[in-house]
């Protein structure tokens, strides 16, 4: 049976049902394309490459334009909030680097030569030594109306186009934000040496998030479908913290955030959760917290075998990603190999629904255009 539109197609996937074709999930968080590659792709499709603009400065992603999304038959539509009033992006020229300070006071920089992304290097709470210091840090108002100025229009536009809206997060998850605000090594050590400070900071980032989504969901109204949160808890080979530590510090707060989002949403909202790396060990915990969709399904990480993941968690989780590995396959394989690898992953993840196609994370600057199209061909062949 043919689905009426993209939204219906993705809704079916979210309800673990197959549809006329496998839905395509670009434009959700971490399902983007690096600006350099995006320009090449536009050119190959006969679209004006000059139109491409950077929309995610940190990851240097191109804003995917409607003409491009139409050509590749994308089903998802990313919804984005804006920066708060009183903060604007100012690029500073510092020696070897381009630098800026974000709305939280975190400093980022990118090497002028040979740089691909902004990375943080200075953290506002790095020198904090008490709970008081943590409480004293002030954030821009998470409910500031400037953040949500054109959000209702974006939802209306997605509805007109029949696309499935994915409300993307405006910053990292509660754990990531704690690491970014405090500094990675400092926060990791706090979790053992100063657990009170760690909990206070996590409460603070949780509070920010709850308030942000409260307002965001009010503006989104009944059109809401997917709410995306990203909180990396794993590395290539392992978890970032022990399962016990995750369960003590992070899990209760994830659970609180996700149930808050579901409660505040005006209609059924699906929680889309992103963590790179070897997350398999914690998937049962995430399911318990109310996560509906997992991304990016990093097949190249330890113990992240597509077939096993589908068998063990396919009933409870929708896989949004896992379409093609972006560390080795997409940049380095031949187009034919990319196509075959794509088809193999789809064979493992798609049966019975519960799958939205996307590469494992953003398509990076080192991906040849032919490989991107070979990936789409693989998807197309599996749709026949």
């Amino acid at each position, binding site marked *: 049976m043919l689905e009426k539109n993209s939204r219906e197609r993705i809704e079916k996937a979210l309800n673990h049902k197959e549809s006329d074709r496998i839905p395509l999930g670009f434009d959700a968080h971490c399902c983007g394309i690096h600006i350099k590659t995006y320009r090449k792709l536009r050119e190959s499709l006969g679209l004006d490459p000059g139109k491409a603009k950077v929309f995610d400065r940190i990851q240097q992603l191109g804003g995917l334009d409607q003409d491009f999304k139409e050509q590749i038959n994308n089903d998802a539509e990313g919804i984005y909030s804006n920066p708060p009033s009183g903060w604007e992006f100012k690029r500073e020229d510092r020696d*070897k680097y381009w630098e800026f300070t974000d709305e939280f006071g975190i400093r980022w*920089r*990118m*090497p002028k*030569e*040979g*740089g*691909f*992304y902004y*990375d943080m*290097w200075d953290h506002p709470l790095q020198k904090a030594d008490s709970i008081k210091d943590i409480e004293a840090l002030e954030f821009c108002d998470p409910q500031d109306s400037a953040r949500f100025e054109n959000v209702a229009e974006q939802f209306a536009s997605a509805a007109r186009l029949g696309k499935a809206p994915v409300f993307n997060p405006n910053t990292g998850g509660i754990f990531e934000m704690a690491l970014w605000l405090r500094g*990675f*090594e400092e926060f*990791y*050590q706090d*979790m*053992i*040496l100063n657990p009170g400070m760690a909990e206070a900071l996590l409460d603070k980032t949780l509070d920010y998030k709850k308030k942000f989504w409260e307002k965001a969901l009010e503006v989104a109204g009944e059109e809401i479908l997917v709410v995306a949160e990203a909180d990396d808890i794993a*590395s*290539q*080979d*392992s*978890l*970032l*913290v*022990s399962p016990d*530590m995750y369960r003590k510090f992070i899990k209760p707060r994830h659970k609180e955030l996700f149930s808050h989002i579901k409660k505040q949403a005006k209609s059924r909202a699906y929680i889309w959760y992103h963590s790179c790396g070897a997350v398999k060990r914690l998937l049962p915990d995430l399911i318990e917290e109310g996560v509906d969709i997992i991304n990016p399904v990093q097949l190249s990480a330890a113990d992240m075998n597509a077939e096993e993941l589908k068998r063990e968690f396919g009933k409870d989780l929708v896989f949004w990603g896992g379409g093609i590995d*972006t*560390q*080795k396959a997409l*940049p380095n394989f031949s187009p034919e190999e990319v196509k075959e690898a794509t088809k193999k992953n789809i064979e493992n993840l798609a049966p019975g629904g519960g799958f939205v196609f996307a590469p494992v994370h953003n398509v*990076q*600057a*080192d991906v040849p255009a032919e490989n991107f199209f070979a990936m789409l061909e693989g998807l197309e062949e599996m749709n026949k």
Partner: protein
Amino acid sequence: MDYLINIIENLHAGNAEGVKSNVEQALRSGMSADEILQQGMMKAMGIIGEKFKNDEIFVPEVLVAARAMKSGMEVLKPVLIDDKVESQGAVLLGTVKGDLHDIGKNLVGMMLEGGGFDVIDMGVDIEADEFVNKLREEQADVLAMSALLTTTMPEMKNVIDVLKEVGLRGKVKVIIGGAPVTSDYAEQIGADAYAKDAGSAVDKVKEMLL
């Protein structure tokens, strides 16, 4: 003997003050600095590395152990120098040009220090020429390079090529690591070794210098 057990226990608990006073007590009791280093600090960090490799402990536990080790080393180092105890070798460490990531690299540095090596950490975004100059200046035995990005990984090959050009390749061992890096890649670009994690890095560097 108890001092050594205390050092190991306190190091694992991340108790920096405890390790420091254990080292002081051990020295006062007449134990040699070398024995405290080998049987206390290095043994403890070896266990930490092993547990990290086996997913029994994670980044936070390694960081607090390394911090405790550092505070013990502050007491121990001057005595080791007085006793003319030679280090296991000097390792120059850095993240390659274009790449600003350093947690993995820092963990490697800490574990190598715990393994008795002199570590010269150059930081992130290091150009080939800077590596070369520092290698010459410090007479380091090993160059350890890190890259987190598929897009900056090729710079590791460039550094190795530059080492060849300037005639340093035969004098220094090269080990590489980072999330997207593999042993195949190490072989392909002509590195001497690849380490999957900070614990393995210590083993690999030891093997290379045998």
